[in-house]
């Protein structure tokens, strides 16, 4: 018995069975792999949409903080200044209370700038651009001159990397403002061929020897650095009153979209 398929493929029954079997295996393989990949694609799309929703919520939250709480803190600070002017110079206790409250309100204003400017990072803005505006805000709130220096051009970086570096810069500035009482701070961002180097320096009071055991500032920054595949180092010159916090992130595995 002979089977003719298409253009002259004459097969006996045994061969025809083999051919049909082979063709059936093709469909089985494609169907099996197709179903697996479709299932995986669905999971991937669910994860991506969930991440997008979280990101959108964070951006909305940062906008809400900016429009409500941050504005209120700003108004409180203005009120403190006004109250200080109205208070009699002879009432030193009242002045001290007003100064302390003003410092607290400025501290709160600065803390709120973290999530607000992090929202700009999530919106896809370049790190340098966000840090420039962050330093300008730091200077306005704390009255401490903040300078930013950049070398190299910022490549397209994944939002995780930009968020991590921004968080480190913000926390380093917060530490300087709250603990070091500096005359000036400097943020430098170097885009080198193999790595990104972020440094935040201040000329204030040295870090205590046991700084690693105190608070969570440095350990938080170190965790941020590790999360983006980088390292964090802290240099505090004994007696010279200068602290530099440096984060280095190698480019390997760093490039990505917004």
């Amino acid at each position, binding site marked *: 018995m002979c089977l003719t*398929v*298409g*253009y*002259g*493929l*004459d097969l006996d029954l045994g*061969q025809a069975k*083999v*051919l049909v079997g*082979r*063709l059936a*295996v*093709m*469909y089985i*393989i*494609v*169907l099996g*792999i*197709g*179903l697996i*990949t*479709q299932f*995986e*694609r669905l999971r*991937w*799309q669910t994860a991506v949409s969930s991440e997008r929703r979280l990101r959108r919520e964070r951006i909305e939250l940062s906008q809400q903080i900016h429009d409500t709480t941050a504005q209120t803190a700003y108004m409180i600070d203005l009120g403190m200044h006004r109250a200080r002017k109205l208070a009699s110079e002879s009432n030193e206790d009242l002045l001290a209370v007003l100064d302390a409250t003003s410092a607290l309100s400025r501290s709160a204003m600065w803390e709120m700038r973290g999530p607000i400017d992090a929202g700009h990072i999530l919106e896809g803005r370049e790190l340098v651009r966000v840090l420039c505006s962050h330093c300008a805000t730091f200077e306005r709130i704390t009255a401490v001159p903040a300078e930013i220096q950049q070398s190299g051009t910022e490549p397209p970086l994944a939002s995780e990397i930009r968020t991590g570096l921004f968080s480190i810069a913000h926390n380093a500035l917060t530490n300087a403002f709250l603990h070091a009482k500096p005359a000036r701070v400097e943020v430098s961002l170097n885009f080198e061929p193999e790595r990104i180097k972020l440094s935040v320096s201040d000329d204030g009071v040295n870090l205590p020897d046991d700084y690693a055991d105190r608070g969570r500032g440095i350990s938080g920054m170190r965790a941020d650095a590790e999360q983006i595949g980088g390292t964090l180092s802290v240099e505090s010159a004994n007696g010279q009153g200068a602290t530099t916090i440096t984060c280095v992130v190698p480019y390997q595995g760093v490039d*990505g*979209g917004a």
Partner: protein
Amino acid sequence: MLNAGTGLVKKWITPGSLTLPDVVIYATWISVWGRWLILLLGVFLIAYRPGFWYSKDLEYLALPVLLLAVNCLVHYRLLAKRPVTQRWLLFLSLMDVALITAGLIIGAGFPSFIFLAYYPALAMFAVIFSSLWLSLGWTTMVVLATPWCA
């Protein structure tokens, strides 16, 4: 009207994920490395046979060389970060099927061991395009090409 129809068909057969450039690049990397692996295994299977240096077998050798050249080109484009689109992926898959079919035509037809190369080629297509309908359509095209392999 024609454009709308083409768009509808394109939407139907194209997986949503492949509209993202990053996903296309990722899929192309998988495709290129998968092809290197299959190519190496194919060359090994051809070279390992005792009667390799028959004149007919030399014709076989032209096929992996062509595959190697095209895969090199795509690999270079990926390394040089040049744009890679869905059309490249489709072209590579079409080339896989065409070369395997050519191998069968040159050789002993469908009983040849080269027939087995259809399986990884189709499997790779299903992984890369991840559209079940497109993969089944592609398989049907391969099945219909079988009569030419006599």
